């Protein structure tokens, strides 16, 4: 029954996308806040590391938004 197959796919993709987006976006926030704190404390190495995490996680979020827009355009 194809509906059941689709359903299973929706469940795992929904879990992955929903939890993944929330976690990735909170990583962006956490990394930005920690990078700011590290900069103020003069810990340049930590500031660079957290900034890099923020950039990577931010790019993942942007990619998710782009994927969402493509899905809307092509469904």
């Amino acid at each position, binding site marked *: 029954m194809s509906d059941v197959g689709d359903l299973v796919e929706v469940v795992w993709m929904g879990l992955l996308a929903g939890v993944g987006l929330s976690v990735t976006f*909170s990583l962006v926030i*956490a990394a930005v*806040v920690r990078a700011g704190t590290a900069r103020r404390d003069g810990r340049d190495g930590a500031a660079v590391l957290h900034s890099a995490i923020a950039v990577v996680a931010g790019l993942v979020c942007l990619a998710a938004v782009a994927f969402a827009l493509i899905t809307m355009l092509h469904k």
Partner: protein
Amino acid sequence: MASDLLLVLVIGAALAFDFTNGFHDTANVVATSISTRAMAPRAAIALAAILNFVGAFLSLEVAATIAKGIVDSGAITLQVVFAGLIGAILWNLVTWWYGLPSSSSHALIGGVVGAMLVSHGPSAIHGDGLLGKVVLPALVAPVLAFVVAGLSILLVYRIVGRLRPGPVTRGFRLGQIASGSLLALAHGTNDAQKTMGVITLALVAHGSLSAAHPDVPFWVVVASASAIALGTYSGGWRIIRTMGSKIIKMDAAQGFSAQGSGAAVILAATHVGFPLSTTHVISGGVVGAGAAKRLSAVKWGVAGNMAVAWILTIPAAGLTGAAAYGISALFGGGTLGPLVVCLVLAVATVALIRARSTPAALAEDPA
């Protein structure tokens, strides 16, 4: 070939449904943002209205049949569509009045199924389609959103829990604006197309469009986009209050988990080709984000009322659609029946308004 007047009635009902769809579903997009003060209420609604309008132009690929795979498409007549729209509009208004979020798509399907049952009997309803395309997703959507939002908020609290709350709250508020914008775009794309499909079907039945190549006329796109945007801008405040503050009192992280993870679930499901109701997903997400923090934080009575409304949507819209078709059929298969239905609705509306505006003392004293 349908008469000009019947065509006008169906187009009017379709645009009226589109309008109620907009103001009924505004809450899905803006309720959490308003509740966590990510945006001012009027600004949130204005942005949602603009993005619903834009979304309606993004894709026309599904502007086709309504209730496809659920009823016998070949048996759908304009009278059935009209009665189905009346059923959906009335159910949207009733649930709005009680501040209950419910699916406009399910209301439309329920209305059409009810009208089809009266017009062609049970053989015109595809039971497996109803189960697979409506009942199953309606069960899965809130549960999946509940679990996803619940898991999300637990992980989010672990990641940002020990950080200064000020910048964290600002960050999640920004995230809510982005996820709300995506939801508004997706809503405009999905829901305005239902109206476009109905109007296109009416134009084909009228003979104004070729049945072989029924391209959606541009004025239909503009009218549908405008109706859903105006509906969104008028704001279904009763439902916004329910979703934004009556189910849980949410912080910005919970608001983002409910809305952001909800948007991700909806778009992931759309990608798979198994569309889920935005209302069911966002409502389930709000309850999940509250329950994961503390079970007692959720007002389960309100959540229970919502669940009852979801269960009643198809039967209630179906009964109304069936009644509208029944009244319409009493006056023959032409334009007179739908006209009488409009007249009955107009008289009922005036009577309701007069009854509500009569002072209580006068109403109690028949003399």
